């Protein structure tokens, strides 16, 4: 329809009039300078829409357009009225950045249009460039893409972004486990909003610790987990790299911990505001020595809620660190989310060791191989743990060859044991056929629509979207055999592809896009047709 992608509202009245035309998750730039008390009164608004969450379903950027434009033109010495009119161009400049388009055509247009008034031309150009620079300067502005609307089953819905969903998921998990939620984190785009969200939930007993760096973020979380908290640490790629040594410690001392990596464009600082799926291999292998860790990935913004809970459940049940992968696209993208009944969500059983009788720090639960969670302060459980190799059961430092091999295999077996809880995959679409598409993470939406379209054209295609990347679902190998060809679309150079080839020796094909943005349905369909023929 004629719904718009961007709306720039200079005042409350304009907002009221036009917001209905804005697409869900569309970009809404509002001139916050004109949303003061009496502006609202004039527009007969009882509450401030910039604060009352009524605009949650849009990507709201509340910007002091007036003040900033004035600051930008200060030195020009044009009159106030003209300056203020330039704020439109300031906003336009922002749009150009958000859609990374060139300003040149408009620059020429301005020069032409205001030929007679060179100063005005200058002012407008400056304002536009200032708007553009303003977006570039900070990492505040992240383009987000419309999430293809899914079939909505009946229920109560709200708009939900990935970062928000993670935050709510962790709060829920803590409540269901009856534990204090501790988040040790160091801000980094696009993960910072998880910290911003959780820091508001002190009424749920949430403790947020903004650490001096990512290393202190994860090690303080390890300390908190050791002391009995549900501990999480949240970051993006570069920060993840800094946490890898400490991840090894978490593996060695076998305590529950959830690490969230909201992936962004790289390498290095890369493209902080753009999306990518290229941290999978880092999550699987980015540690010294053999240090296996379960890895989960969320497929939609709303799914982040459920993945957060699942990660906490695994961490606590198996006494392991768990890595959760999302990305910039999920983090900032929003979708309608069916609000679950609190009662629908299973409890997460926790039992701190209490009994000194025969207590040994590495005595294991035979089914999960988990060691006891024996927190300081418990009489009679005084014991020592650390990162050196240790004897199983007693936990005493031990360098004996066979014990080391035994411990390495136990740590691996423990992660493998998580497989007990992973449901078999059931492909969407055709249960067997010409092509199986295996995806993970934020490509879920675009793959789903592409598969739907292609199946309507009569092609026999299945779609498996992996939530568990380590361990992989038990029946995946068998499912793969049911199809002639395997396609693995990823926003990286072929990382899951690599894993599947190694594990199943399957000659799968990759569709790899590494442009800081998601797949277009079109791109997927072209590849599908190329593979199964037109």
């Amino acid at each position: 329809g004629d719904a718009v992608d961007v709306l720039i509202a200079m005042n409350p009245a304009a907002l009221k009039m036009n917001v209905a035309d804005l697409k869900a998750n569309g970009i809404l730039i509002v001139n916050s300078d004109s949303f003061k008390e009496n502006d609202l009164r004039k527009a007969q608004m009882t509450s401030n829409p910039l604060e009352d969450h009524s605009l949650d379903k849009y990507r709201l950027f509340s910007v002091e357009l007036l003040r900033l434009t004035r600051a930008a033109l200060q030195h020009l010495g044009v009159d106030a009225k003209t300056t203020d009119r330039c704020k439109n161009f300031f906003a336009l400049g922002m749009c150009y950045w958000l859609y990374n388009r060139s300003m040149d055509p408009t620059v020429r247009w301005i020069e032409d249009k205001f030929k007679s008034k060179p100063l005005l031309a200058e002012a407008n150009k400056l304002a536009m460039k200032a708007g553009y620079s303003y977006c570039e300067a900070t990492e505040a502005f992240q383009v987000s893409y419309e999430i293809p609307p899914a079939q909505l089953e009946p229920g109560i819905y709200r708009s939900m972004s990935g970062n928000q969903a993670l935050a709510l998921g962790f709060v829920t998990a803590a409540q269901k486990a009856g534990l204090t939620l501790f988040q040790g984190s160091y801000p980094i785009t696009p993960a910072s909003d998880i910290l911003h969200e959780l820091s508001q939930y002190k009424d749920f007993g949430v403790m947020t610790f903004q650490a001096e760096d990512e290393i202190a973020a994860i090690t303080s979380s390890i300390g908190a987990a050791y002391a009995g908290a549900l501990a999480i640490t949240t970051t993006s790629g570069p920060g993840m790299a800094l946490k890898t040594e400490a991840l090894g410690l978490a593996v060695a001392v076998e305590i529950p911990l959830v690490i969230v990596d909201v992936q962004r464009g790289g390498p290095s600082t890369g493209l902080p505001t753009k999306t990518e799926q290229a941290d999978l291999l880092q999550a699987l292998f980015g540690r010294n020595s053999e240090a296996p860790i379960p890895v989960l990935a969320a497929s939609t913004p709303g799914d982040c809620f459920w993945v957060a809970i699942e990660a906490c459940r695994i961490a606590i049940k198996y006494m392991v660190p768990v890595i959760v992968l999302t990305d910039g696209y999920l983090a900032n993208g929003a979708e309608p989310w069916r609000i679950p009944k609190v009662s629908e969500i299973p409890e997460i059983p926790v039992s701190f060791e209490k009994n000194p009788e025969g207590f040994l720090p590495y005595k294991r639960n035979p089914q999960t191989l988990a060691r006891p969670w024996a927190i300081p302060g418990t009489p009679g459980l005084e014991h020592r743990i650390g990162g050196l190799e240790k004897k199983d059961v007693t936990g005493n430092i031990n360098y004996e060859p066979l014990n080391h091999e035994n411990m390495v295999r136990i740590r691996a077996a423990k992660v493998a044991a998580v497989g007990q809880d992973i449901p078999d995959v059931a492909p969407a679409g055709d249960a067997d056929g010409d092509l199986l598409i295996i995806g993970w993470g934020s490509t879920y939406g675009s793959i789903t629509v592409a598969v739907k379209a292609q199946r309507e054209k009569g092609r026999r295609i299945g779609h498996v979207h992996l939530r568990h990347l380590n361990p992989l679902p038990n029946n995946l190998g068998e499912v793969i055999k049911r199809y002639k060809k395997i396609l693995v679309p990823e926003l990286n150079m072929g990382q899951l592809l690599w894993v599947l080839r190694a594990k199943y020796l399957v000659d799968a094909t990759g569709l790899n896009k590494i442009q800081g943005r998601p797949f277009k349905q079109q791109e997927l369909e072209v590849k599908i047709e190329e593979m199964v023929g037109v």
Partner: protein
Amino acid sequence: MTTATLPTLTKKDFQTDQEVRWCPGCGDYAILAAVQSVFPELGIPREKFVVVSGIGCSSRFPYYMNTFGFHTIHGRAPAVATGIKAIQPELEVWVATGDGDALSIGGNHTIHMLRRNVGVKVLLFNNRIYGLTKGQYSPTSEFNKKTKSTPFGSVDRPFNPISLAIGAEATFVARSVDVFQQHLKETLRHAAAHRGSAFVEILQNCNIFNDRAWESITEKDARSERVIQLEHGKPLIFGKNREKGIRRRSDGDIEVVPLGNGIGEKDLVVHDAHHPRPSYAFLLSHMEQRPGFPTPIGVLRAWDDLPRYEDVMNEQVSDVIAKRGHGDLSKLLHAGDTWEVK
């Protein structure tokens, strides 16, 4: 409260079944003995103690303490300890660390923990060397030090751990020496009594890779001549016959003066460990670098009026709960704009 009902603990209660494994003659043995004899005096149940360390000879400390113990990774003990205190503020958390662990790789965590005034006691075993890794110079090694990694002498100027800690807003800083058992125990008692961050530099001898590093202080006689023992409220006097004192000059600096002929205790600086501002402690912290000045040991600064990080953190939570009541999960999930799909 619990203390009332406590079975009184003894040194033995804090010893583990693990063979203590340091080199024969290592200063760490003396520090272990001092800690094991002070802990029982504190009237704190044993399960409330957590000893956290990084990596280094000194960081093996937790294995020999029959308390909760966490031998973490190199340099990160202060951050781990901060997480523990946030969740269980009532625990008695002590960090055992070395000059490399705390000041080299762990420097940032150390200064941030001090800045935040987390209620953790830090015992810095300063042997001016990397012991565990076979003797490289450390951030506290003297300039031009010849070590395995600097055969032609090191080119770094050392940190003064006390000055650094004060610059990082530490509320408690003290210094003692492995072989001064009584003084060391007394210093540990002061540290234990401090609620906020307590930073204790312990001069320790590594007799394998840096033997006699502190000889000028520990050798016979030196103690009285080259060391001054600070005591709150007492004038700054030292010397074998307590014949020297430290006096303020009109320009605010200090000077060493002989006592007698007109100069008496009344003229000397009276040690004020509890001063709210750090300048005086800072002035003392590096006086030994000046000819004729002694090395200060004891408590340089103990200002305890500042709330502990973990307490403020937890109060903030309880305040919000007091104001808003306990969060309602269902309400939270339904927050904002909702609609029904039939």
